[in-house]
């Protein structure tokens, strides 16, 4: 690094080169840091300022902390957090539960395992927007899902138009798309258990159950925490599926937090309120991040 500057430099080109070599660490890292600052730190700062203003037809006016008081005391914000939490709970438990179960099944002597793993990639690479459309087509009145459940119901199910069903009708596409992620990660963990470890345990007289608990489980424990974290983050930011399938309706029954913020900013034009909600959500996200970072030893 610095020994270059001790070399007696010749022409201008060499001097530029020397300067570059001497400052390489900054040249390499500053552009990325600048972009991150511009797109993460600056917007949060801007949101802080915006959150102190009220936006209406007459322009904007300074209202100090009024937005915070209004949001925290009115029910709508808490309601959309609750809806997000419900979506998160059902989606994450189904994805992680089913995902692990399928991983165990595929880890036993199943035919075409490689092919099945490749098929598991299919939902993962499709846009959530398209996933929503795939399911909207399946949810069509008298469509595939209706005829599938026909023996159990009387007539077509109002999948997306009944407030008591719609949220679960949003959970299903997410489960369809993301269960394979859990399966693929856990399966990779299961297959990383070296055969000789299993064999050694067998030689020691450990039964299947004991081998599962004492040999296999430690290998996948960390991975289960990892996918849990990934899916909690993923479901917290769900937007595309809601935007395409229900836009938060019917009767706001699927208005998850990102949809509520979208509506506040772009339907009502109230950037102040929306920014306030953004900052509150940021606090929640940081709290979850901090909790996971301290509880688990997973490296990101």
């Amino acid at each position, binding site marked *: 690094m610095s020994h270059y500057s001790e070399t007696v430099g010749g022409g201008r080109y060499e001097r530029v080169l020397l300067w570059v070599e001497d400052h390489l*660490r*900054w040249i390499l890292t500053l552009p990325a840091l600048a972009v991150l600052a511009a797109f993460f730190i600056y917007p949060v700062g801007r949101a802080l300022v915006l959150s102190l203003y009220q936006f209406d037809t007459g322009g904007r006016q300074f209202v100090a902390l009024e937005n915070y008081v209004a949001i925290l005391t009115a029910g709508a914000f808490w309601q959309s957090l609750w809806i997000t939490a419900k979506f998160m709970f059902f989606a994450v438990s189904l994805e992680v539960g089913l995902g692990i179960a399928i991983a165990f099944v595929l880890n036993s002597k199943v035919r075409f395992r490689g092919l099945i793993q490749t098929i598991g990639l299919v939902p993962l690479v499709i846009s959530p927007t398209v996933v929503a459309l795939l399911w909207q087509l399946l949810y069509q009145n008298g469509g595939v899902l209706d005829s599938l459940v026909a023996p159990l119901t009387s007539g077509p199910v109002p999948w997306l138009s009944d407030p008591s069903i719609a949220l679960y009708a949003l959970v299903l596409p997410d489960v369809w798309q993301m269960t394979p992620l859990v399966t693929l990660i856990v399966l990779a963990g299961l297959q990383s258990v070296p055969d000789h470890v299993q064999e050694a345990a067998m030689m020691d007289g450990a039964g299947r159950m004991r081998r599962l608990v004492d040999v296999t489980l430690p290998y996948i424990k960390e991975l289960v925490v990892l996918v849990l974290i990934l899916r909690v983050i993923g479901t917290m930011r769900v937007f595309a599926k809601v*935007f395409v399938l229900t836009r938060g309706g019917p009767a706001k029954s699927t208005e998850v937090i990102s949809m509520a913020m979208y509506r506040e900013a772009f339907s009502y034009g109230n950037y102040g309120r929306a920014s306030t909600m953004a900052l509150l959500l940021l606090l929640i996200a940081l709290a979850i991040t901090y909790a996971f970072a301290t509880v688990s030893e997973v490296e990101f």
Partner: protein
Amino acid sequence: MATDTKPKRGVGRALLAGVERIHETLDSYGLVPTVTNGIALLFVVWTLFPVYWMVSGSLRTRSDLLATPPKLVSTAITVGNYPELFAQRPTFYEFLFNSVVVTVGSTALAVLLGTAATYGFVNYEFPYDLGRFHLPFLVLTTRFLPPIVTVIPLHVIFDTASLLNTRLGLVLAYAAFNIPFVVWMLKGFFAELPDSIVEAAVLDGHTELGAFFKIVLPMVRPGLIAATIFTVINAWNELLFAVILTSNTEAQTLPVALATFKTAYAIQWELLTVAGTIAMAPVLLFAFLVREKLLRGFTMGAVR
């Protein structure tokens, strides 16, 4: 605790015990392979059917597609929906074009800046431990941060910076969101390189910069490819930023077109299935071509 014959308690263990009991019962009837293969088949059908349904729908007439009860296999196949989509909605070419430009541009930028930054962070020391502190912290927060948090102020910022409704704006925003991802995927590859490799190259007469391009980059190529694959998929599929930061065919991408396809009257499913298929096809083809790398990428960090 070798003397402990009973497994320890816990939800996971209780579940495992239950599964084990089912397994033993099935095993006594010799049904294990049937059941596991059956579940695997079910998983495959469940995963592929929705995709099959949309792709096959794009090749059917409207009445055939929406028939009740649904016809699982069509008798009348037509490709007429494809030209019909572009005839009825000529703007689709523009959405496609925008998607391609934004994907290519943001991927190039994210991989370039992300690679440089990762190499810098891994190989150099920074005052105040900037590298060691910032690298994991930035990656962590940006991966946890719901994008809706930044996109609302970003809309206001883009408005004053004249970046609203431009492809450049989307390129920058996607690059920014993918840089932490690129860093996360690459840092392992860079960290695994022996420290002496650059020193050896310098002794051989390379400059440090030359050593980076000629020796380091080729060695982390698998990481670069993986990072590129994921950035391409992320950018091609993104909706939230696109829907908030763009407003017409100047910059709107395919996902925006799909999300707002519904007309005031009804959904033209015979055309929407075509649009959906067009949006899926490139990523599915791409995923198939690089499936090994993709699998490794998804399970990365998982198995190390």
